[in-house]
């Protein structure tokens, strides 16, 4: 009887998801605390609560990158790599499940923060900020801005994929050597980022992390979205290439 690849992927995904539960919970607890705090203390100025929410947003975006190192390196430090590498599946499935978990972590974290913002807007925050400040009402009355933000969010997701691919690639490269593995990983990570930057610059592609330019372009929605699409596509291609390289090293070169 043949085993379903989807089921195998599901098992790997659930196993890896368990490994990042703590990080996801940290973000969720933070969101709950901030949201509850605001709901209970509506006399506090809105920025006091918006600021921690923005901090949490940064945390939710950054934690998956940290987790990408943890997810893979833990397999070695806990010797579970013996189990994983013995499985009758290729590196695409092993690393693909980890990538999917990291994207899930990002989406859960940022999604909940967006939901929290919406809840605050529709309840206490709305009555507090709408009289004198435009606040979130701009967002809800401006579909173009919503489109821009969604495009920006998608870019963030793709940029995370790029960073996680780079993380996987640098880690499997580091594991090719039994000595100075951590150092090789760090150097490979930096070199890959620098090289990727140079490749994108060579093709005159603007970085999606260039916030100042992004903000300038906010006024012109089409330009902004097109630029993001182009940049996203470039980063997506790079992420795929680096991911394939990581898989090739995992499948063909990695030894225990």
């Amino acid at each position, binding site marked *: *009887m*043949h*085993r379903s690849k989807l*089921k*195998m992927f*599901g*098992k790997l995904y659930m*196993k890896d998801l*368990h490994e990042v539960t703590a990080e996801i919970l940290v973000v969720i607890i933070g969101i709950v605390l901030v949201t509850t705090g605001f709901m209970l203390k509506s006399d506090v100025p809105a920025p006091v609560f918006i600021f921690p929410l923005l901090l949490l947003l940064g945390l939710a975006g950054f934690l998956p990158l940290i987790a990408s190192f943890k997810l893979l390196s833990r397999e070695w430090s*806990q*010797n*579970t*790599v*013996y*189990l994983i*590498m*013995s*499985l*009758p*599946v290729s590196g695409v499935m092993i690393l693909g499940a980890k990538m999917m978990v990291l994207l899930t972590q990002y989406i859960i974290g940022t999604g909940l923060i967006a939901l929290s913002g919406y809840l605050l807007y529709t309840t206490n925050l709305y009555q507090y900020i709408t009289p004198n400040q435009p606040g979130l009402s701009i967002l809800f009355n401006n579909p173009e801005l919503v489109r821009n933000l969604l495009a920006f969010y998608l870019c963030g997701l793709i940029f995370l994929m790029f960073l996680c691919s780079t993380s996987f690639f640098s880690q499997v490269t580091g594991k090719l050597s*039994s000595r100075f593995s951590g150092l090789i990983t760090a150097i490979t990570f930096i070199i890959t980022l620098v090289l990727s930057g140079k490749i994108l610059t060579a093709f005159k592609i603007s970085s999606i992390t260039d916030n100042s330019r992004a903000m300038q372009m906010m006024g012109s929605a089409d330009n902004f979205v097109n630029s993001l699409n182009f940049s996203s596509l470039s980063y997506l291609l790079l992420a795929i290439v680096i991911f394939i390289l990581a898989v090739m090293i995992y*499948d063909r070169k990695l*030894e*225990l």
Partner: protein
Amino acid sequence: MIEFDHVSKRFGSIQALDQLNLQFKPGKIIGLFGPNGAGKSTAMKMIAGLNQPDRGRILVDGQSPRQSRDRIAFLPEIDHLYGWWTLKQAADFMRSFYSDWDDSRYRQLLDFLNLQEDMKIGKISKGQRAKCKLLLVVARRAPYILLDEPLSGIDILTREIIINTLNLDLREGEQTIIISTHEIDDVENLVDEVFFIDQGRIVVSGAAEELKTTRGMSLVEIMKEAFRNAQKQA
């Protein structure tokens, strides 16, 4: 059949395997014996596809080990299961990946080894973990079962249970079981064929009973003699 064809492997200054030639015939219980650092684990990991030869090649039924992973059940010496898993979660995981997983055998061995499915792997004793690892490997009807030091650090009673497990329901002619260990006396009566390995080379090999009869010695004594001779020649 598993074949090693002039396989060499070096880790830094250590020659783990040196032009190793051997064949593991199907349907046998094979002992791969030798002292610590002899190259047993390297050979086992190579069959499991976790290590690759610097030179030479290994074939499992004519295919590379990495292509044969679904036909190999490997029990490494170290603890390789997730500590947060319960035995049930571990079994569910294995069941999803291997079509040769045998649920009835799993249930039978669960009782025989006196294990409970809700045991958390990270919280149980070393002996129980060894039994869990063995259970997850032997519950598969894999053509090749590789056991790397399955008795290492295990108390006498648990050893006896593990050996009895291996004796239980072994399907003669179907499964090949390769046991790598330096604790020969425990598995002396279990193995059909033996390979004594030292410094990455086979020093003595043959059918276990034949070796014992012709030399009039136990396998432990044969190994001691073989390694003394190998050291003299070196």
